[in-house]
């Protein structure tokens, strides 16, 4: 009855099968809700030529920024570069290929990838550099551009609590891109704070059903804060 026990006990097992030149979809927004241990494992493995799909690329010295430092990333698909000096520098130098994608389009591309929708139309980016080379089409008199979906060889996802089936919930705004990433990986790996018994999570309150999840590992998280602003700082 091992069919639904997706728990693995080492990061090596969690990322087994990752090879050079693969595409990885990563959850997280800034440093919030990022699979810290899985990223560290990719650094350890030294895999190169990676395409990474993630809203941001961590910061210098933390999160996906670690993989930039090691030049393991060939291409980033992201919406935001700001506040990440190495990212901006590698981009301006042409060392790193970057496909800047509007944040909502990026989220929708991941969702579509997971949902079997190869392409959709959106008004976002029409008339801007984002629309270059893309089909423009009018619906009800308004122009939209066609965007294609994204899937990855791996999806790396950070959740709060999960059971052995891979059912999970996210904590507060650490949800962000994680649910969509979870649906869009050929192999989806969940790094969680806490493993719970099946049945502990209320069925109607599960954010990501286990069907999308292949492996679950319990991690340790530093949870670095990018901008600590206090009510008294105003």
């Amino acid at each position, binding site marked *: 009855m091992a069919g639904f026990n997706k728990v693995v006990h080492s990061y090596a097992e969690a990322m087994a099968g990752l090879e050079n030149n693969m595409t990885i979809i990563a959850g997280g927004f800034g440093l919030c809700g990022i699979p810290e241990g899985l990223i560290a494992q990719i650094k350890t493995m030294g895999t190169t030529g990676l395409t990474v799909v993630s809203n941001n690329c961590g910061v210098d010295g933390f999160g996906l920024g670690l993989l930039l430092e090691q030049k393991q990333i060939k291409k980033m698909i992201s919406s935001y570069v700001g506040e990440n000096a190495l990212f901006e520098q590698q981009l301006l130098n042409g060392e790193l290929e970057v496909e800047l994608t509007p944040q*909502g389009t990026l989220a929708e591309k991941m969702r579509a990838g997971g949902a079997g929708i190869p392409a959709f139309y959106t008004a976002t980016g029409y008339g801007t550099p984002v629309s270059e080379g893309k089909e423009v089409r009018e619906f009800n008199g308004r122009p939209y551009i066609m965007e294609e979906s994204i899937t990855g060889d791996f999806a790396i996802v950070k959740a709060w609590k999960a059971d052995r089936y891979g059912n999970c919930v996210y904590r507060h705004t650490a949800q962000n891109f994680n649910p969509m990433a979870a649906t869009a990986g050929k192999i989806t790996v969940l790094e969680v704070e806490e493993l719970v018994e099946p049945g502990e999570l209320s069925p109607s309150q599960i954010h990501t059903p286990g069907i999308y999840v292949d492996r679950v590992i319990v991690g340790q998280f530093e949870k670095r804060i990018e*901008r600590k602003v206090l*009510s008294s700082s105003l």
Partner: protein
Amino acid sequence: MALNREQIAKRVAQEFCDGDYINLGIGIPTLAANYVPKGIEVMLQSENGLLGMGAYPTEEQVDADMINAGKETVTAATGASIFSSAESFAMIRGGHVDLTVLGAFEVDSQGNIASWMIPGKLIKGMGGAMDLVAGARNIIVTMTHADKHGNSKLLEACTLPLTGVNCINRIITDLAVLEVKDGAFHLLERAPGVSVEEIVSKTAGKLIVKETTPEMQV
């Protein structure tokens, strides 16, 4: 005299209506949250997945899992909801957010906006800005009227890569409040003590001025 950041934020907040769902960009727009007019209630949407953004936390409330789109620590207001990025942008792109306020490098008299890159110099990325300007029902830009060299940021046509086209309804600068329609900027209000002539001289795009232009109340 030209408004300072706080004053611009105050004037922005006068645009809020009771029951509005509002997305405020990083910088001056975010400050506007401090000046919501008495007697009205608005809900702030943060595009990383929070509707009903509350105050900044106390030291005890700080939680790394609770941030806004500017990556600042925040709290949730009563009645808040938290969701995925796809849900957040479904909300934004589906036209459910009443008002978006955001900064810009340039705006032009066609309602175009440029805010995310300066070729060869600076690439911030568009983040959620392209989605916001394509999706929100009403869009206000806040910025200084001219750059630090005195060059107008209100142009006949934007020179930088665009964030969105024909989407800006209103502009609130340190000098004026303007409406964008029919291919021109329409001067609605001027900052206290700022002359119409100064605004005219610092507006490169076509500007329509009425006989009298009231001063802003800030």
